[in-house]
């Protein structure tokens, strides 16, 4: 699955205001509401569900990235928002290091395979140090969009 198919380019936040995990999640959910991907009345519930999932097991996979996610009926297709924190956020990551790139993924209730495909795409790229570095360096939504499109076009990049 390509980034283009699920990343909401209107919901990228180059400078997260929040300095804590739950704040960052709420901020990214808000961005999805503004972009029209998540219904405004569902925002609170989505945020709560993501936080709850995060409390069960951290999605901070180490190396400065976290992929909080949840299934929710508010979306009909998989959608992701991406945020960057310059200060670093405590996500209770596996390597106990702060998180600088947060990819929030919301999946519909009834399509586990699409959720897996989006995860595959995210982690295939996040594994590469170069990709993580560039992701952290994106200071404008346009730069992030270029990076993801480039990754889509060159899967082996």
């Amino acid at each position, binding site marked *: 699955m390509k980034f283009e198919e699920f990343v909401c380019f209107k919901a990228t936040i180059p400078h997260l205001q929040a300095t804590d995990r739950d704040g960052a999640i709420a901020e990214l959910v808000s961005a999805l509401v503004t972009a029209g991907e998540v219904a405004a009345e569902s925002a609170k519930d989505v945020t709560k569900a993501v936080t709850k999932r995060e409390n*069960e*097991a951290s*999605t901070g*996979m*180490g*190396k400065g990235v976290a*992929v909080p*996610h949840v299934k929710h009926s508010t979306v009909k297709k998989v959608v992701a928002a991406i945020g960057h924190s310059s200060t670093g956020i405590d996500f209770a990551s*596996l390597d106990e290091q702060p998180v600088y790139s947060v990819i929030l993924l919301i999946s519909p209730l009834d399509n*586990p*395979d699409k*959720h*897996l*495909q989006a*995860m*595959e795409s995210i*982690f*295939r790229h*996040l*594994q590469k140090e170069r990709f993580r570095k560039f992701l952290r360096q994106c200071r404008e939504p346009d730069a992030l969009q270029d990076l993801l499109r480039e990754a889509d076009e060159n899967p082996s990049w």
Partner: protein
Amino acid sequence: MSRTRVGLRREDPMQMGERALEKLVCETIVEIRNADGLHMRPAMQFVDLASRFASDITVSNDDTEADAKSIMQMTMLAAARGTRLRIRAEGPDAEEAVNALRELVETRLFGEPPPEGKG
């Protein structure tokens, strides 16, 4: 059980010196059977279990091979229900590792429900 192959691999004696070492290699194919597939939580369980063994363990599908002890790599397999994965272990506890991992995937279904109704 018939799907599991166990073998002894003798390292190249030229490389190993006079005392050739023997390494146990064990390999099997498992099928993902829980409804949601190998998403992050099952992948974490898999990594936790694999990490308890001394053997080197890899898991592969048709085009990707993952280190069974790396959560980033395991998540990348994105195996949906019905996917077959090859588990390969190499080391002193290879057979135990493969058996334990197969049980987690096929018998315990990662503690998740099987697909509803239609099975």
